């Protein structure tokens, strides 16, 4: 049996002119894993998927699927994908689309089977131009699984889906992964990543900023943010002292406005107020995922900010 990992990305970089879309991604995905690539728009999720599939050439680094060239794995029909901006032909029916792609593969599933797996049987004869957003994604899923792949890339598969369509979609995804196959899906919904992935890889600005189990990554994303206007002077000593307060994960200051991300906002706030009586307009808000991304990326760019230290070993890269 082939024991090579399903995906191995090493030192992967991709620049478009002056823009660096992917900036040194190392990632190994073992067969049978279900991975969420989590990140805001522009984090490099789609480019990473393109590079892994060999659809784009890396500026530096390598991408391997099943221990070899991605193209070889695709030729063998081991890889399926729902790509960003990979639409179907509007004049064809769903069944015709699946049949057309199946005819390009060497050992495809029967069209009926692929439609069945993607829950497309009842929309098989409908024209692609007439599909709703959710039906369209299901049709694209049918096209992606028609080669009976071992590895599936799904780039924001539930975009444009309502709640019910989303549930149905993940149901068919589950059936697919229950057979021990590997899935990589990109999303910017933490709840989706949490519910369906074994492992979450967070990307921001083209880099892996966190990689761990959903519990580990959720710990990064959770927490609260304390914001206040500071009446005192901002010095590195003050920053270090604030960073040492109980529960504090990161400290930032802009235009006299102080922002602290904390895992225990009650303890932090008590200590903070005890140390400083010249704070005004104090706000405590839930720390959003965007904040987490920002905190994780800024800590790498900005040497004065404290490094996030609450991630468990192995979760922080």
């Amino acid at each position: 049996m082939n024991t090579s990992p399903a995906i191995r990305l090493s030192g992967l970089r991709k620049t478009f002119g002056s823009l660096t879309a992917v900036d040194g991604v190392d990632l190994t995905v073992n067969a049978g894993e279900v991975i969420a690539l989590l990140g805001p728009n522009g984090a490099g999720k789609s480019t990473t998927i393109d590079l892994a599939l060999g659809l784009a050439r890396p500026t530096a680094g390598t991408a391997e699927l099943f221990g070899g060239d991605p193209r070889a794995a695709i030729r063998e029909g081991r890889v399926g994908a729902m790509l960003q901006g990979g639409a179907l032909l509007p004049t064809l029916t769903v069944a015709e689309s699946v049949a057309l792609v199946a005819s390009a593969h060497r050992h495809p599933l029967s069209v009926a089977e692929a439609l069945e797996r993607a829950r497309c049987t009842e929309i098989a004869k409908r024209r692609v131009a007439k599909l709703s957003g959710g039906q369209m994604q299901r049709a694209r899923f049918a096209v992606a699984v028609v080669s009976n792949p071992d590895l599936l890339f799904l780039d924001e598969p539930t975009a444009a889906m309502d709640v019910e369509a989303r549930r149905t979609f993940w149901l068919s995804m589950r059936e697919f992964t229950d057979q021990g196959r590997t899935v990589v899906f990109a999303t910017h919904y933490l709840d989706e990543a949490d519910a369906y992935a074994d492992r979450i890889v967070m990307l921001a600005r083209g880099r892996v900023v966190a990689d761990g189990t959903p519990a580990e990554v959720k710990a990064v994303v959770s927490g609260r943010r304390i914001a206040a206007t500071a009446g005192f002077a901002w010095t590195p000593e003050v920053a270090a002292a604030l960073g040492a307060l109980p529960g504090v994960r990161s400290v930032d200051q802009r235009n006299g406005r102080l922002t602290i991300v904390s895992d225990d906002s009650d303890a932090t706030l008590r200590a903070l107020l005890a140390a400083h009586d010249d704070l005004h307009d104090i706000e405590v808000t839930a720390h959003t995922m965007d904040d987490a991304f920002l905190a994780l990326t800024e800590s790498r760019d900005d040497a004065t900010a404290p490094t996030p230290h609450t991630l468990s070993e192995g979760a922080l890269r």
Partner: protein
Amino acid sequence: MSIAYLGRESLRQLKNMRAMIFTLAVPLVMLLAFGGTFGGRGQVDAVTHLPWIVVTTIQVSAYGGMMAALSQAFNIVTERSLGWNRQLRVTPLTGTGYLLSKLVAALALALLSIVVIVGVSIALYHPVLPAMSWMLACLAIWAGVVPFALLGILIGQFAKPEFAQPLFMAVFMGMAVLGGLWIPLQIFPAWVANVAQAVPSYWLNRVGQLGALQSGDALTPALVLTAWTLALGALIVWRYRRDAARG
């Protein structure tokens, strides 16, 4: 290379009724207009010594075949803008295979177009010409359509969606007018007829006439059409390699 895919792609395009009607409508209207005017009264063309209706039918068939082949440009541009070709890149189909599928589809559409036009002409105007001559005329035009299929593919590779329509029209009109597929070249100044000698559409019409005559100098048209085929093929390969290297 998947033969099944090539077949399915051609079949899909043939079944696209709207596109087929669009492809066939103009040449059929031309045939009815010219044929109805000068129709079955058996006049003989002074230059080719073929019945006038045969000359017209061949001219319109060349026009129809050319249009069917060139229209691959739209298929490729549309598929590029939709991202369908990206989806196909996650299959064993190679880039070459994709382009080949378009060439095969172009030839399938062109053949259908030629056969329909000749068929309608025979049914309506009963032109006097041996069956063998019709066969040769159709085959010659069909073979001569290859450089136009390549030209359509090249436009498809180059053109941005918003630019495809005007570019297609410019190329198509130029080919139709300079090749004498719309209006006989005799009514133009002599220099136009000289320019026409370099244009593949002129020779596309000519090979059809030679097929119908079953005689004449086939070497010059063969050379010109082959030269166009090789040059366009080289451009397509160059463009394809450049795109692949950019990735």
